[in-house]
């Protein structure tokens, strides 16, 4: 049965296809694109199949090669990763479709390289989501990171240096994570997450376990770009090719965040993370600063992509604010925000890629009158921007709503103010773009592309994915109650319920 094998197929299909891409490109270059889309489409179907299985009430345990855990590597899928799989593979598929025209314009000689690495990156991300083994997670983390370094480096002028800084910081992060896993292994003799969960509680007092937890948190914190470990992120997102930032910005940090949530709630119990160590307090302070600093830095930018990158720093703050508060509502808000932010950022980066494609620039102050040349693209931008600010009925409103309720339940009024204030800051930097694009008339002669306001919409293969994302923001927003009751309620750790 294919259905039984879906948990492993979502790794194998993109992995094998990425090796076939250079081969089929030998026959015809266009075939590499077709193969990528076919592979990602199949992956998306498999992930929907997994979600359906989990929603029927049975968590999936799949032993690789028939070796039972804890000896063999195990794939474990519960509500949390079943919820993340479809949107990770779905966004991979949409960005895959979107990327073709953008690549042909920006980096035509890297067309085949891109799809090869793109499938490997997807493999790494999906592998991190499904694995139930700490060391296996490290391997997939590095597969996704190394391909991301390479993809970022093929971008514009500043890209190699940005990629190099990312290599150095990312490697420190991965090495610290590996060291933490080593400490866990030396104390327990196992790498399986479920096994570790059973063995660790007796050892919670041990300083080695606490240091292991600290290493893993800081290591993944670098990958997540949690403030103040975010310094690699703005440059990397700004200089990467448009298609790459549209993929990396929504997904890389979210999947690493999932790994940290897994460590905090599944490998260790919430009791350890919140009561025995002051992780909740530290994370909430850090997240609060991240939200404000990210927003303020975003206001200071002229470059649309750099502005979005800093806004990512602040949105990651939201996710970890919810995790840090540690009550049911806040955690649901954080999980919901992982999905919402992936959709919003994907949509926004797609729009900035389309602007690069048609007008070759993304300077906010030169966007005057762009709504007349690209009305549909800018309309998608407006929907995503409203969602970032948190205006109902867009998806961004609902996750912020849950986070706000969470801060109130935890009696953290300071953080309530932080969320509300940052929504205003979000409004400042997004309305600035909308104002430039819609309200200021274009000056003839100042900007030749925009002069005259001739319709010059992005090609349909770029516009359609952008609009599917924008529509998803609205649909997810309207159905967020159902998502929470059917999936997320079960994804919150049992003790917190």
């Amino acid at each position, binding site marked *: 049965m294919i259905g039984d094998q879906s948990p492993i197929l979502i790794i194998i299909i993109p992995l094998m296809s990425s090796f076939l891409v250079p081969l089929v490109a030998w026959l015809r270059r266009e075939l590499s694109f077709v193969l990528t889309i076919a592979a990602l489409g199949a992956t998306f179907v498999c992930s929907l199949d997994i979600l359906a299985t989990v929603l029927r009430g049975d968590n999936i345990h799949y032993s690789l090669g028939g070796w039972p855990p804890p000896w063999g590597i195990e794939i474990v899928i519960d509500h949390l990763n079943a919820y993340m799989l479809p949107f990770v593979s779905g966004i991979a598929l949409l960005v895959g479709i979107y990327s073709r025209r953008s690549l042909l314009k920006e980096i035509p000689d890297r067309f085949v390289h891109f799809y090869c690495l793109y499938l490997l990156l997807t493999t790494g991300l999906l592998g991190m989501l499904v694995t139930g083994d700490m060391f296996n997670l*490290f391997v997939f983390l590095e597969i996704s990171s190394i391909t991301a*370094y390479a993809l970022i480096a093929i971008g514009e002028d500043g890209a190699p240096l940005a990629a*190099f800084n990312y*290599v*150095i910081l990312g490697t420190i992060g991965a090495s610290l994570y590996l060291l933490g896993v080593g400490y866990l292994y030396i104390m327990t003799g196992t790498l399986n997450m479920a096994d570790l969960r059973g063995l660790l509680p007796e050892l919670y007092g041990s300083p080695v376990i606490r240091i292991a937890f600290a290493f893993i948190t800081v290591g993944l914190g670098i990958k997540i770009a949690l403030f103040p470990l975010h310094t690699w992120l703005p440059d990397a997102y700004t200089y990467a090719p448009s298609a790459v930032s549209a993929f990396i910005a929504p997904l890389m940090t979210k999947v690493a965040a999932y790994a940290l949530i897994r460590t905090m709630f599944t490998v260790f119990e919430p009791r350890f993370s919140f009561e025995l160590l002051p992780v909740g307090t530290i994370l909430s302070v850090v997240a609060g600063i991240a939200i404000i600093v990210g927003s303020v830095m975003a206001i200071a930018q002229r470059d649309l992509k750099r502005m979005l990158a800093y806004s990512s720093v602040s949105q990651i703050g939201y996710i970890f604010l919810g995790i840090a508060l540690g009550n049911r509502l806040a955690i649901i808000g954080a999980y919901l925000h992982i999905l919402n932010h992936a959709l919003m950022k994907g949509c926004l980066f797609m729009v900035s890629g389309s602007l690069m494609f048609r007008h070759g620039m993304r300077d906010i102050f030169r966007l005057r009158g762009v709504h007349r040349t690209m009305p549909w693209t800018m309309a998608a931008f407006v929907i995503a921007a409203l969602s970032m600010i948190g205006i109902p009925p867009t998806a961004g409103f609902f996750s912020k709503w849950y986070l706000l309720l969470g801060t109130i339940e935890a009696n953290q009024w300071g953080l309530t103010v932080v969320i509300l204030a940052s929504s205003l800051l979000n409004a400042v930097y997004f309305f600035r773009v909308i104002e430039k694009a819609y309200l200021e008339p274009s000056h003839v002669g100042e900007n030749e592309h925009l002069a005259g306001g001739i319709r010059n919409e992005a090609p349909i293969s770029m516009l359609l994915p952008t609009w599917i994302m924008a529509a998803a923001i609205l649909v997810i927003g309207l159905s967020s109650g159902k998502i929470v009751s059917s999936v997320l309620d079960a994804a919150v750790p049992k003790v917190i319920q």
Partner: protein
Amino acid sequence: MEYLVNNYNYWIYILMMMIGFYAMIGKKNLVKKLIGMNIFQTAIILYFVSIAVKSGATVPILINHAFNTAVDPSKYANPLPHVLMLTAIVVMVSTTGVALAIVKMIYNRYKTLEENEILEAGK
């Protein structure tokens, strides 16, 4: 003192890690940063290999096909950390490869590998 001497491999691993960390943060030259990164990763390999060591134990291979009798784990060195490190070495090699390729791209563009000179040229 005995504590220090008996666990010398762990002290060396911490020392190596700090040397690598310093090189990554303190040095301006990109290749020196890269070397620091390698030292940092190698230190972790030393740590993992150290935890597998047992005095007086042998290689973890079953000689007499003693499938029916229980295996005494204290007679064998732990193979798992070594296997993990083989994978980690592969990861290290690919990271270094990608990083070197990026360094070459930077050199082709700026004709220098000093970070401050690159930042000045970028302005």
